């Protein structure tokens, strides 16, 4: 009974404070079992003097907070301004944007180029082939990267083939199937062939792995392999070449497609109608699953953009791309 009265007294004291609108120093603790025997002792009410001191501190803190944030904002703003102006003044910058398949190679080339020309700066951005071409049209980028041929209205733009990339159909290394005709690959990806048994493999359901809608690699695969047919909806969707490789490397029943340059020992690239996807066969045109890597300009390139393009087309840069698994543009049968 005593406990309850003590509690009530405490609460009333608290509420009084609250309604007076003054600071509360009373800390009400929820009663627990241990405190029941010792009724909590109500803290003294805050005196007016202490209250004033606290208020002043809080005010000072509030002002500090507001002005602090304001000043920080100003500082950041100035920093951004000075940085952008500094960049514009000291370095001639061009932006290269587009296909995420071309992006890593473009980054490599840009790095090399900036090494040779310390005064220039090249910004490489992703976003996809269509977005890159759009960016060139709108002037947001000087060079667009595309991993597909130009279509429709885009043909009015100026495109330069910088390299070619092959798409490899990959399976688990333990999969007994090593060779498939292109028609069979299509049948598999439409979902009409569902079991490896039908292709001379084990009696296992095929796990299809594809890229997400909008990806340049998927677009190229759609065009080169599927034609007008649709990739089965039950296919697993992964959002990068690496993720597809990871899934196929882990699943003995999986089949997927990635850039040939990214095939490693954990997966195996299928022969297509007996043709091994390698450098020779791409160069002599026997392996057909090849897509162009293009640089796109609004017109004849000039200035910094031209200088970068010249570098990309130079034998050294092309050699660099070859080392990364691409087929150089300079070799014969260039088209696309």
């Amino acid at each position, binding site marked *: 009974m005593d406990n309850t009265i003590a509690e009530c007294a405490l609460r009333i004291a608290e509420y009084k404070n609250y309604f007076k*609108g003054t600071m509360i120093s009373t800390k009400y603790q929820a009663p627990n079992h241990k405190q029941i025997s010792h009724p909590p002792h109500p803290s003294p009410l805050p005196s007016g003097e202490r209250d004033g001191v606290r*208020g002043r501190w809080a005010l000072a803190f509030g002002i500090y907070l507001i002005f602090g944030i304001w000043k920080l904002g100003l500082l950041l703003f100035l920093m951004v301004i000075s940085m952008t102006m500094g960049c514009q003044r000291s370095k001639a910058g061009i932006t290269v944007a587009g296909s*995420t398949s071309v992006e890593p190679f473009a980054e490599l080339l840009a790095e090399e180029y900036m090494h040779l020309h310390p005064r220039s700066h090249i910004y490489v951005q992703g976003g996809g082939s269509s977005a890159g071409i759009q960016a060139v049209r709108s002037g947001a980028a000087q060079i667009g990267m595309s991993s597909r041929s130009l279509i429709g209205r885009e043909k009015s733009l100026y495109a330069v083939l910088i390299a070619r990339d092959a798409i490899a159909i990959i399976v688990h290394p333990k999969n007994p199937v090593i060779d498939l005709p292109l028609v069979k690959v299509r049948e598999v990806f439409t979902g009409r062939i569902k079991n490896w048994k039908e292709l001379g493999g084990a009696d296992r359901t095929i796990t299809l792995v594809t890229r997400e809608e*909008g990806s340049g690699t998927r677009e190229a695969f*759609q065009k080169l392999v599927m034609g007008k047919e649709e990739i089965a909806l*039950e296919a*697993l969707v992964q*959002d990068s070449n690496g993720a597809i490789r990871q*899934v196929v490397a882990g699943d003995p029943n999986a089949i997927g497609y990635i850039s040939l340059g990214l095939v490693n020992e954990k997966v195996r690239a299928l022969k297509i109608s007996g043709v091994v996807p390698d450098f020779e066969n791409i160069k002599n045109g026997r392996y057909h699953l090849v897509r162009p890597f293009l640089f796109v300009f609004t017109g004849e390139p000039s200035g910094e953009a031209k200088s970068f393009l010249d570098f990309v087309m130079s034998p050294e840069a092309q050699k660099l791309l070859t080392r990364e698994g691409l087929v150089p543009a300079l070799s014969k049968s260039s088209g696309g």
Partner: protein
Amino acid sequence: MTVEFKEKFIEKILLLIAFSSISILALIAFFIFGEGLPLIWKIGPKTFLLGGRWVPGQGEFGILPMIIGSFWVTFGALLLGLPLGLACAIFLCEWTPPWAGMILRSAIQVLAGIPSVIYGFWGLVVLVPLVRNYLGGPGLSILSGSLILSIMILPTIISISEDSLKALPPSYKAGALALGATHWETIWRVLVPAARSGIVASIILGMGRALGETMAMIMILGNAVKMPSSFLDSARTLTTNIGIEMGYATGDHRQALFATGVILFLIIMFLNTLAIVLSRRRVG
């Protein structure tokens, strides 16, 4: 300056700061709805919500498989996570000695702090092969996703359930014990029903967490855009649909992803409102 004036001044400033954070929410909502709604009107809410095919390349935007996928995964996560979480909350509240409680609680906090990409990676490397080898299918499946999610929602369920159990007046327990009920009977027949509203709120908040999870789900679910027919099938949730495709989406496709966000936003808002209403309606 009087004390009252200063108090008012500070109060107003804090009010302003508090509202500025809410205004960000309003801004986000405004933007998502502004981007997403036009597409929903264009293709019709019914086609959008009940369409079974998602083929952006051909202008087909039906998100029913994603809605179904989201609910399968969430339901699975609750099915696994709820008994575990509730049992853990009861144990923490009723039986745990103080030292064990401290260890358990900090462990649960660590669980809540692990980034979802780590959960996803662990699931991909450990769980997915297990499911594939022992149960069949591609492994990247609703079952794997639910298992991971059930662990991810545990901290939410445990901490809120435990709080609501602790908030019960001690007289409930004392009364039940005095009437001759055993400890377990007291818990199961008196304490848990009395804390019902809080426990339900914890379930709903856990559901919200499960519905909103993206990164781990992208890695584990396989993201196929097909109506799932079993727990071993791959699925795509509303969040992963946005996460996986936003990189390249332009035009209608981009708007369709925002429209997916609109639906997700509405579902989450509904769940959170439900949780608030239910937790306000305390028993006792």
